[in-house]
């Protein structure tokens, strides 16, 4: 197997750092060879706050992955998240004098045109993702190349974020003498393995609830219409429990995993959860309804914030979404799908990486969706064969931030 067919995805999460080593198979599937993992320290709300500690954790995770897969890791694809990331949709247009054939350079020029908008000075573009082409008012042209026209227009979904914060992630990996292929918005990576092409065409909202952040992405007609990052996640639920029930953070985390439920406390079975004494903790009795109230309110609020954000980003967008897919470590929380259904009022499904093969226990766990998604994304971007869908093609247009930076 040629070396370029091996892809490594690295996600520096708030709870854990995961490295997925995958191999692209001839039938276009991704086969996972192994995963390296360490608990994450020095990351808060998806962003690096302690460079040295994080670098050490990443090193451990990479070594772990090399150990398990027997692959020497040279280059990685990195996921990026954080509340500093923002997005918007913009249309670029290009007049073609004398109604000539559209060339590849024209497609590039129209993308540059779409990016000619003011973003805050500390920010830099992360992705410019194609939504659709229009030629002379002919909407949604699949491939305008070689067709004739006087006016080429293109809609893009543009993601930008604070330059220094993105660079921090890159610097941390560079200091380990590991090359970076590209940085990818976390939700974009997850969506590659969590959503099927049908779902993307049909209209879907993907929500990836992690430890420090909740990343979400809206696909309509096969193209990304909206994306967002909320600096809220499982850590907040744990903190709420810790504050509300006066428990140490570690005990609150355990309680959340073992007994936590996001379902409406009105239908709770009620009763008391008895927490046992242990050497560092004096046992106590916890009211189950209180626990469920705390979790329910927080989870519901997260979904409501996402809903409001989508509604305010485009009129009628919410009506075009036919289903919600929830993934990420926090999606393992009991009752979370019902809460989402209540808020979004459309079918909700808990999901994880699909269309991949390899060690089953890895891709069946929703907390690896982003890291696995990175390898799939890498496969789509580097693939040389003719693009089979819009998504594959748009991938070529993605901003390769790292290369630009090192030039």
């Amino acid at each position, binding site marked *: 197997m040629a070396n370029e067919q091996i892809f490594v995805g690295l996600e520096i999460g708030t709870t854990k750092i995961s490295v997925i080593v995958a191999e692209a198979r001839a039938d276009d599937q991704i086969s996972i060879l192994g995963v390296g993992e360490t608990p994450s320290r020095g990351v808060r709300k998806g962003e690096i706050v302690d460079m040295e500690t994080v670098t050490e954790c990443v090193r451990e995770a990479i070594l772990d992955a090399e150990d398990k897969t027997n692959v020497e890791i040279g280059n990685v694809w990195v996921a990026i998240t954080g509340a500093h990331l923002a997005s918007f949709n913009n249309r670029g247009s290009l007049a073609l004098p004398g109604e000539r054939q559209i060339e590849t350079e024209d497609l590039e020029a129209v993308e540059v045109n779409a990016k000619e908008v003011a973003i805050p000075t500390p920010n830099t573009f992360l992705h410019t993702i194609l939504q659709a082409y229009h030629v002379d008012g002919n909407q949604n042209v699949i491939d305008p190349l070689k067709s004739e026209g006087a006016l080429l227009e293109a809609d893009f979904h543009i993601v930008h974020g604070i330059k220094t914060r993105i660079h921090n992630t890159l610097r941390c990996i560079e200091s380990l003498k590991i090359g970076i292929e590209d940085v990818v918005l976390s939700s974009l990576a997850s969506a590659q393995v969590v959503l099927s092409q049908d779902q993307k065409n049909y209209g879907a909202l993907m929500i990836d609830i992690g430890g420090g952040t909740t990343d979400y992405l809206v696909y309509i007609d096969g193209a990304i219409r909206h994306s967002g990052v909320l600096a809220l996640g499982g850590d907040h639920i744990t903190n*709420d429990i810790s504050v509300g029930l006066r428990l140490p953070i570690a005990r609150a985390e355990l309680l959340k995993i073992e007994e936590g439920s996001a379902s409406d406390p009105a239908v709770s079975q009620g009763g008391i959860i008895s927490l046992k*004494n242990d050497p560092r903790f004096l046992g*106590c009795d916890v009211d189950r309804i209180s626990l469920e109230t705390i979790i329910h309110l927080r989870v519901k609020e997260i979904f409501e914030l996402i809903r409001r954000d989508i509604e305010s980003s485009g009129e009628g967008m919410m009506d075009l979404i036919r289903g919600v897919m929830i993934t990420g470590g926090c999606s393992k929380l009991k009752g979370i799908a019902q809460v989402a259904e209540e808020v979004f009022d459309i079918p909700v499904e808990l999901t994880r990486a699909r269309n991949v093969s390899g060690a089953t226990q890895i891709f069946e766990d929703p907390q690896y969706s982003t890291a696995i998604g990175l390898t799939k994304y890498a496969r789509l971007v580097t693939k040389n064969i003719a693009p089979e869908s819009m998504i594959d093609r748009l991938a070529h247009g993605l901003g390769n931030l790292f290369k630009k930076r090192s030039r």
Partner: protein
Amino acid sequence: MSTSPSRRILVGVGNAGVTVLDLLSVECPGMTGLLAVNNDRDSLNASIVREKIEVPEGDPGEGFRVIDEEFGRTVEGASAVILCGGLGGETGSFLLTALAIRAKSAGLTTMACVGMPFSFEGKHKRDLAERSLEKLQEICDAVLVIGNDQLSGGSPSIAAVGEAFVLSDRTLLAALLALTGMLSTSGPVKITRADIHNVLGKPGVLTHFGFGKAEGSNRLHESLERALKSPLLTMPGKGSTLKESSMILLLLRGAKDISFAEVQAVVGKIEQIAGDNCQIKVGVHADGPLGSPLELYLLASSGGTVRKPAKPSESNETGETNSSNSSISRIGTTGTIGTKSPQSTGGYEMPPEHSEGEKGTGELFPNQTKPASKFGKKAATASKQMQGTLALDTYQRGRFDKSEPTIVEGEDLDVPTFLRKGIKLNTPTRK
């Protein structure tokens, strides 16, 4: 400061007021125009403020005479009087109102900067304080109120009682600095007396005040963050109170090199929190030596009732408003506005040279007739309750205490949802 300091007199009233003036003399050694008024001889003797008036205790008639004569003589020729003290005590409550009446009758702009007692000081004190506050708000052009109870919302209840009072004095000092700083802003971006009156001049109004100080390369963000975290700018469970305000006064004070971009960044951030309907007035005091720390003061209010029509003595303020509206749009559009008359706290101002930045003038103009804010009475009553019943430990961010806050739609989402929604829980029973 560009104005002659003698034109503005800071009066520390009662023990609290005198303490604050002492702190001020230590903080800004060269400051003049300070006056300590008290009926406690020991406190006055201990004070380092040079000018003092002792009001005899126990004889109201004699007290009034002293105030009328001695105080009247001292403030003669001044342009503004700022009273500072703690309400609730017999001394502070009585003297503050008496002095305010005297200053006002001399036709001076009179402002007050007062602290409300902690709830643990008892109901009697609280009632007395509230009555005096009502009176003060009637008399003065602007009253800045520091609710001591709210202060403790920021620091945990384990704080020693002594520390609580020190914090209260410190905050009162900062408020006094903010008020004097705003009064004496000059140059292209300034805050006028009318603006201050607009924000703090309505009876029953609830003051929101925040300040932050920082130095170094990230001074702006650090000071803004500190100011925004100020307990007087947050409502338990509701996030920033700035979004309830129709006008926000922002004072930046520091080294000469405060840049245009910095001012713009801070205003942008505040706008984000406060919403589009809010008007932000900016004053910049950039006369400190290079490298001096940046101080940032935020002043806003919510609630309150409409004030009765303007008194004749306030007419020059309205004129001032007209000519020196330093609304944010001006910063954005003009960089070349002419130098102002040096007497910025005086009466006359040069007429505006630009008209494109005057967007806000219409609503700003006769501010006394401005309709009550959209929150009206409801907010006023709600906020009153809030001051009294705030439990000391309701405001908690837990493990996120030291991390960058997640603020969406103006709410601090690091605070547990159930706390923000005010939902009661059964606390666990220890075995």
